[in-house]
Each structure stands twice: as C-alpha cells, then as structure tokens.
C-alpha cells in the first residue's frame, strides 16, 4: 500500500537582484520530483549537498513552504494544509535530524524533550508520562534514569538516540530521517543504524532516509532515489542502482564510492577515468539545454531513469 505519494513537488526560492530587488530568477531547490513510499519500506534519497534531498523532507513536514505539487499521505493531500492544519498529521509523520547537538534543546531535560510531543497530543498524567518516557528510553537502549539529565551529559550517539525516542513517542507511521548518522563516528553510526532497523521491525515503520553516504544508504534502503540539482535522475531498488546504474550521474556517483579493498585500487581508478570521460561526452544526452535532468522513464517495473 502506498503510504506517501509525492507528485511533481517543487520548491523554488526567488533570487532577488538589481536595484529594486525584483525577482530575477529562482533557485530551483526541488524542481518537479515525484515518487512513492510503500508501507514498511525504507526509501533512500541520495545526492550531494545542494541536490535538494533535505528540502524534500522538510517540505513534507511544512518546515519549508513548497511552491507547487502534491504530497499525499495515507490518501490525504497535505499540500493544501497550512502549518497549523498540519497538526493532526504530525503524529503520523516524524523526523530525525542530522545534528545531534543542535536538535535537542540544551535547556530542557531529556524527560521534557521526549515528552514534548506527548504533551501536545495526549493528556497523560505525570505517572503515565514518566512511564511512557522510560519505555521509549529503554527502546533506544538508554538507561531510564537518564530522563532527568540534560542533553550535554550525553555523547553524540546517545543524543541521536534521544532524538529517535522523541520521534517514536507518537507512534508515527512514517519517519523522515534527515542524514541521521552523518555527524557520527563510524562505530557510533553502526549502533544508531542498528537501532533504526530494530525499531522499524518492532513498530512497522516506514522510513524516508535522506543521506549522502552511499554505503549507509545501501545498507539501510530497499528503494533508492538519486537526486541531482533538485531533480530525481534515477530510481530503483538498491541492486538496480548499485549494480546496474543507468543514468550517467548515478554511474559517476557509484564510481566515486571509495573502494575498501586496497588491492583493487588501480582498477577503480581506471573505472573512474572511464566514467569521467563518458560523463563529459554523454552529458548533453542526459541533460537538456538548461542542465536540467529529463523526466523519469520506466525501464523496468521498479527502475526509472531520467532520459529524454
């Protein structure tokens, strides 16, 4: 079943210039993106900085105003709601943020941080609330006693887990994870990723996983959308994207993944050279005269590529 459907989403920012600050052009942060999330799956949005991947996540939650398009969640069109009207739907869509340091209010205790959504939506007694907070702390592997501590008493990984617990309290259906591990060290990152996978099973969550690390994305996601300059250039299940990339940009991105086996360095360098050449030669075939990627075309049931 389709849980979230994004249809031709556009987020444009005006560029003002000239003496009178008139709008001379737009930055097309997201420029006509459409995709679907099925219930229970993990959809990965991958791209380089400025590709618009984070903007999509924020536009779904109305943290950023969208210019046009439709966002249909569970059959409800969210795009026509205002920030305030979104409130009932926020229970079902939650977000995990990138920076474990700034995403927790330094002046609030962990208990208050995790209970914030509960206080907005449910009227619990003090005892119930405490029980609930402790329960979720336990779920993300933190000591229930830590609810009386302040965020600065925790390490980056622990803070990120607090953020996850906070997102879980309303029992959401969809979690938008915006680069949840990119600020963490490898070993801590592994821990958080494991938790995300465990929780997905336990709560039947659907993830929209936004990231730039192709290794992490492949590890986590069932389906992947590759973004470039505000457009989706390719979409497919993990194997298709990684083993059989079709768009020239995807190819280049995949080739850029560092090779963990030092024995194969020379091969990899050769491959990258080849792809770089190909990229230059074939660029006009994959992008129109404005450097904009074409619309997606299906080449198999699951695989879509931006081609003319």
């Amino acid at each position, binding site marked *: 079943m389709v849980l979230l459907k994004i249809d031709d989403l556009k987020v444009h920012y005006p560029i003002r210039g000239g003496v009178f600050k008139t709008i001379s052009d737009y930055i097309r942060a997201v420029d006509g993106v459409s995709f679907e999330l099925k219930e229970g799956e993990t959809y990965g949005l991958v791209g380089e900085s400025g590709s618009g991947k984070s903007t999509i996540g924020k536009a779904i939650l109305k943290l950023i105003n969208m210019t046009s398009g439709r966002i249909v969640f569970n059959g409800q069109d969210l795009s026509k709601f205002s920030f305030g009207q979104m409130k009932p739907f926020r229970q079902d869509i939650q977000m995990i943020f990138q920076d474990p340091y700034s995403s927790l209010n330094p002046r609030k205790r962990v208990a208050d941080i995790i209970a914030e959504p509960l206080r907005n939506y449910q009227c619990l007694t003090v005892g119930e609330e405490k029980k609930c907070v402790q329960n979720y702390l336990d779920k993300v592997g933190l000591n229930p006693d830590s609810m009386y501590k302040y965020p600065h008493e925790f390490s980056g990984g622990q803070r990120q887990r607090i953020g996850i617990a906070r997102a879980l309290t309303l029992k959401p259906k969809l979690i938008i994870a915006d680069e949840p591990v990119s600020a963490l*060290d*490898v070993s801590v990152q*592994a*821990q958080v990723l*494991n938790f995300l996978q465990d929780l997905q099973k336990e709560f039947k969550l659907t993830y929209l996983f936004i990231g730039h690390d192709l290794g992490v994305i492949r590890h986590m996601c069932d389906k992947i959308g590759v973004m470039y300059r505000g457009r989706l250039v390719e979409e497919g299940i993990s194997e298709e994207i990684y083993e059989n990339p079709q768009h020239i940009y995807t190819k280049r991105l995949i080739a850029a*993944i*560092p090779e*963990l086996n030092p024995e194969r360095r020379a091969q990899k360098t050769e491959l990258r050279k080849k792809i770089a050449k190909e990229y230059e030669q074939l660029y006009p075939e994959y992008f129109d005269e404005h450097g904009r990627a074409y619309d997606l075309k299906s080449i198999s049931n699951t695989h879509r590529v931006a081609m003319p």
Partner: protein
Amino acid sequence: MEKPILQIENLTTSFKIKEKYYPAVDHVSFSVFENEIVAVVGESGCGKSALALSIMRLHNHQRTKIEGEIKYKERDLVDFSERQMNQVRGKEIGIIFQEPLTALNPLMTVGDQIEENLTFHTKLSKEKRRLRTIELLTQVGIPYPTRTYDQFPHELSGGMRQRVMISIAIACNPSLVIADEPTTALDVTIQVQILELLKSIQKDTKMGIILITHDLSVVAEVADRIIVMYAGQVVEIGTVKQIFANPLHPYTRSLLKSIPSQVTNKKRLHVIDGMVPSIVNMNRERCRFSPRIPWISRNAHEESPDLHEVAPEHLVRCTCYKHFYFKGS
C-alpha cells in the same frame, strides 16, 4: 634503507585543562618516507588532529606542552625556536585543513594568499611570484587560473577552495604535506577528485604525505601505510594491505566491521560497546580499549601492552589479539 623525512619518537602533546596537563597524543612514534602516504586513522577525540598540529607546532603555546622528538631531516623540531620553526612551516612542511572556507582569509584574494607563502620563503620578484602562483593554480586543476587569482574565497565552490588550500600547502615544494581531513567537508565525487589530485602531485614531487582522517574508505583508496590511533595512542601500524587484509588489534577490527559495507545488505552492523574515554578521566595504566570488549575476561589483558612487531612493518599494541573472535566471522 632510505632515510625518513620525518621521524617522530615518543611524541607527547599535553593540553592544559584546569591547571593540569593531560596528554592528547601519548608517546606516539612513527616515520614518514619520501613519496609515501601515511594515514593516521581514528575516531573523534583520538588525538589525530592534535598530532597534526603538533608536528607544525601550531598549538596555543600557553596551553600545550610538546615532548619527545619530531625529527625532520635529522633536526628536532621540538627544540626549534619560533623563528626557526617559521622557516620550516610552509617551506618544508605544508598543511591542508579540513574546512576550506574558514581556513582561507575571507578578505584577501586567493592569489595574495598563495603568494604570501612565496613572499616569505623565496626571493622571487613580484612578477615571478604571480607567475608561479598562476602555475600552482593550474597545477591543482583550477580551470581559469588567471581569473581565480583575483577572486575571493567565497566566490569559489568547496572543491575549488580545497584546491586553493592545496596550492598554498605545496607552494614552496615542501617535502612533507600534512592533510588534516582534507575531504571530510566535501561531496563524494569531489572527494575522489581531491584525493586523485594529491596522488598526482605526489607523483611529481615525491613528497611525503600524512593523511589524517576518520574515514577508513579514504585510507583504503590512497594510503601506503596506516597508523590507527585510539585514545591518544597508536594501537596498530601496518601497510595498507596488512591492515585491511589482516587487522589484528580488536579496535581496528571493530572499526572495519562497523562500516556499512556495500555488499552485506540489511545485516546488523558490528557495534563497539561503551564510549571513547575522555582525556581527563582516562585510566592510563591499563589497556585503554579493554573496557569496551565485554566478552573478554579482564585478566586476559596485559596491564599496559606495548606496541610490538608481529610481522615486518606491522606493529600492534595488544598481546592477546589471537584470543579475539567476532560473532559471524
């Protein structure tokens, strides 16, 4: 065997925290040879950046104590005066920082910032300096060097800025370049280009490179030898093949296993329990990694193991690595 460019012996860098000195880099020894890339790997707080700054002696002098030997071409930099040090910095040893935007002066043109290096270390005329700067910009792959010369850092993209940083570091043909997380702030595709660039420059100049990074995959791409650091100490040194094919120290092995590899999908990742000990509350008497290996009995550890050779060029700070096994491996 040839002489190393840089030979570090028992280097200890301590920071003053509340009137007491705590070593962030603890008795580190290694050497760097010509035409070699030595990667220093570790997670945040392991002392790798402190190590980089110690070699250049760029720390805040009032709060830092550097002990041990930093032998650069037979001369010990630790004993150098600031004045002598200034003859080494920029001329003999160059450094590339992580964040190219903040590392460049926002109010100075790119050209002037590169030229500065030449002004202080060469006797070139103004015109010659300009030509050399443009040559450098070309060398680091900047498409329009003469135009970029007069541009300010904020007008360039992240990758271009890092290229400028590199050209500053190599302006005087140093024999050693320290690259402190040079690609962390960059996108993958740009990261590849910068690493390729470093390698190609090395090919031409035969300089030694110390690559400081937290990213094992970057190491696998370019390094010749690897130094793994944990809590201020070196826990394992070896060639890239040794470390990746046969990692011995449990920390190295855990790190490698926790990378979400590109082959295993949806499998659980390996997790190291516990936390990196803080510089202040660290038990320096015991093996520093032992608290994080719960499935090994405590007495299996030697109190404070030394770094010892297990194969040619392969050193490990662990006596009981043979007893370790990992679930699923």
